[in-house]
């Protein structure tokens, strides 16, 4: 019964580890639950669940397992048995025992995959992803004349499939992009300099000055070391970027929360950068900023990160009047704008949410890679991109 709770929680995606489980076992072995279901519930919850986000899942699993159970006596006997020799737990089959022994990532992954593949068959996934896409301010129809659009919805579904598959792979190799991990990767985005008011006590200089003063103490202060990195983020929104709504928004959250950067600005574009960039993700024309102004506002020391899938119709990048939005015709080619960005700023990287294997499938992606170094939107990818941004001058 107890192990059902453990596996039930894990199946529902509640991150319960051995350490939490053993904490609960310690509490129960001391009789802290006092043979009461209510108290057992409170204690199990406090030990096993570490975020209110999982309370609902916990309640469901708990209700499912302990519904109608008179906890009074059985629990203690069963528990004592379990503690005396866990391997002899009466409800455990040989298979379960073996599973408990090697409760590793692969196994969990397999369970997870199974769950997900079931969902695929019922087409839940598709609906959800379309729903996710719907959160973006971009619809399909109005903005994209069908003739120009590459692939259209079909491409998106394909991307979606890849994305789902990749999600599992990320668990084992490149790990998921949670906000905390992104922040850790971003930590290296710093170049420490001493500027501003002198507030930090400088012991070495004080000793030097004191010696020079023949023993009269002379206190020396210096400015604190502060991060001097200013980051400009240019972000592709809408269309083929819709499936990446979640990881991209997590990246944005991490950057906004990061108080370590000296300055941080974000602008938005659709597919490729032309003479206007949006100050909001809606890309309203009234709120747009001429791309040329970026060059006047931000000097070459700003680090630039462009986030986008770099996949578009070749004309959008390489021909005049390539803008996918016919109302925003442009006489300068997208690729020229990109080159100007590269010329103006010392450090520019392109972060691509598509997997590396797909990069070569797109002609525009290949062209863009000749201009900017490209990294994948993953924990290691971001860490490498950060490395390229703060590296010594080319």
């Amino acid at each position, binding site marked *: 019964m107890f192990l059902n709770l453990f596996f039930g929680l894990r199946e529902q995606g509640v991150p319960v580890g051995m350490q939490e489980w053993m904490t609960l076992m310690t509490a129960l072995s001391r009789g802290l639950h006092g043979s009461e279901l*209510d108290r057992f519930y409170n204690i199990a919850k406090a030990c096993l669940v*570490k975020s209110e986000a999982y309370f609902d899942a916990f309640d469901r699993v708990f209700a499912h397992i302990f519904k109608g159970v008179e906890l009074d006596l059985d629990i203690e006997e069963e528990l004592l048995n379990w503690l005396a020799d866990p391997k002899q737990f009466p409800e455990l089959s040989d298979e379960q025992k073996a599973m408990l022994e090697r409760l590793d990532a692969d196994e969990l992954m397999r369970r997870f995959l199974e769950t997900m593949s079931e969902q695929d068959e019922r087409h839940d996934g598709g609906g959800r992803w379309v729903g996710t896409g719907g959160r973006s301010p971009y619809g399909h129809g109005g903005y994209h004349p069908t003739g120009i659009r590459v692939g259209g919805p079909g491409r998106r579904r394909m991307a979606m499939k890849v994305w789902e598959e990749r999600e599992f792979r990320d668990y084992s190799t490149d790990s998921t992009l949670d906000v905390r991990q992104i922040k850790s990767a971003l930590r290296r985005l710093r170049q420490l300099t001493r500027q501003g008011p002198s507030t930090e006590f400088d012991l070495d200089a004080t000793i030097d000055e004191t010696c020079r003063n023949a023993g009269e*103490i002379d206190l020396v202060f210096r400015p604190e070391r502060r991060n001097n990195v200013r980051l400009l983020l240019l972000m592709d929104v809408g269309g083929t970027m819709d499936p990446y709504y979640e990881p991209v928004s997590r990246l944005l959250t991490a950057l906004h929360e990061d108080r370590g950067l000296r300055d941080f600005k974000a602008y938005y574009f659709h597919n490729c950068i032309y003479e206007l960039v949006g100050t909001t993700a809606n890309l309203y024309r009234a709120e747009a900023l001429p791309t040329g102004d970026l060059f006047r506002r931000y000097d070459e020391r700003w680090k630039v990160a462009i986030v986008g899938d770099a996949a578009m119709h070749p004309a959008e990048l390489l021909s005049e009047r390539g803008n996918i939005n016919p109302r925003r015709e442009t006489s300068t080619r997208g690729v020229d704008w990109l080159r100007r960005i590269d010329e103006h700023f010392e450090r520019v990287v392109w972060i691509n949410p598509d997997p590396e294997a797909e990069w070569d499938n797109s002609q525009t992606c290949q062209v863009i890679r000749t201009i900017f170094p490209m990294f994948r939107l993953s924990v290691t990818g971001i860490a490498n991109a950060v490395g390229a941004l703060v590296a010594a001058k080319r």
Partner: protein
Amino acid sequence: MGPTMAANPAFNQFAGTSEYIASPALIDAVNLAIALERPLLIKGEPGTGKTLLARNVARALGNEMESWHIKSTSKAQEGLYVYDTVQRLNDARFGDGDVADVRHYIKYGPLGRVFQADERRVLLIDEVDKADLEFPNDILRELDEMRFTVYETGEEVAARHRPVVIITSNNEKELPDPFLRRCVFHFIKFPAVAQMKRIVAVHHPHLESALLDQVLIKFYWLREQSELRKKPSTSELVDWIAALLRAGVTREQVEAHIPFIGSLLKNEQDTEMLEQFSERGGNPPSKWADLGPRYNQ
């Protein structure tokens, strides 16, 4: 579903105090943390009494409390000790104090003081999420082993009595997994009406019950308004009632409109939202039934 007698009587060390009404789940979580000697991590909406809990646990246990209020600049080292170099240099210059003994210039922080205390203390680490990303990890070892070394003297400070550690978080940042694994966790839910009445009674014992009902109807109605940027919390409710009592506002007046709205809504847009609501002819409800099925008494 009140707190019940456990098989192990030592478990029931905390049962709330006359000034702090705690839910059974919170009481169990506190007692669990004490029994297992694990830090207790408390999350919840602002104004649900997270910080107050530590003070009342200390009162109930008869222990002294030490607070460590975390700011964005807080460093883990400050909680242990600080070596006051400037003081020592100054003393050397003017010949004050015992400069030869570095121990005089080791200033202990909250953790250091709690470890050295002659009896058990309650340590509150308030708003741990305000600090740097790595902060929780930096105090992990000290909280786990309850000891640290003062590098300047080479002395080890070990806790004489394992303190009861209560950590609060406002969810501004995600906390690291290794940190979470070691904690007992409790999320303070916003009090339901019945519990809220008991909480108010602690602060305003002589409040007329018909007036209290009106006050709570308006209060919970405001909280239900999803447009609000900042929902009023328990502490604001208590302040608001104090203001109403002092001004001698009657039940009829509260029934008709919401006086002293400034003590409930702290945001300009929220106040405007309410003004527009009344301009459109809207009227806040005056019966529990109007608040919807969740509030049917």
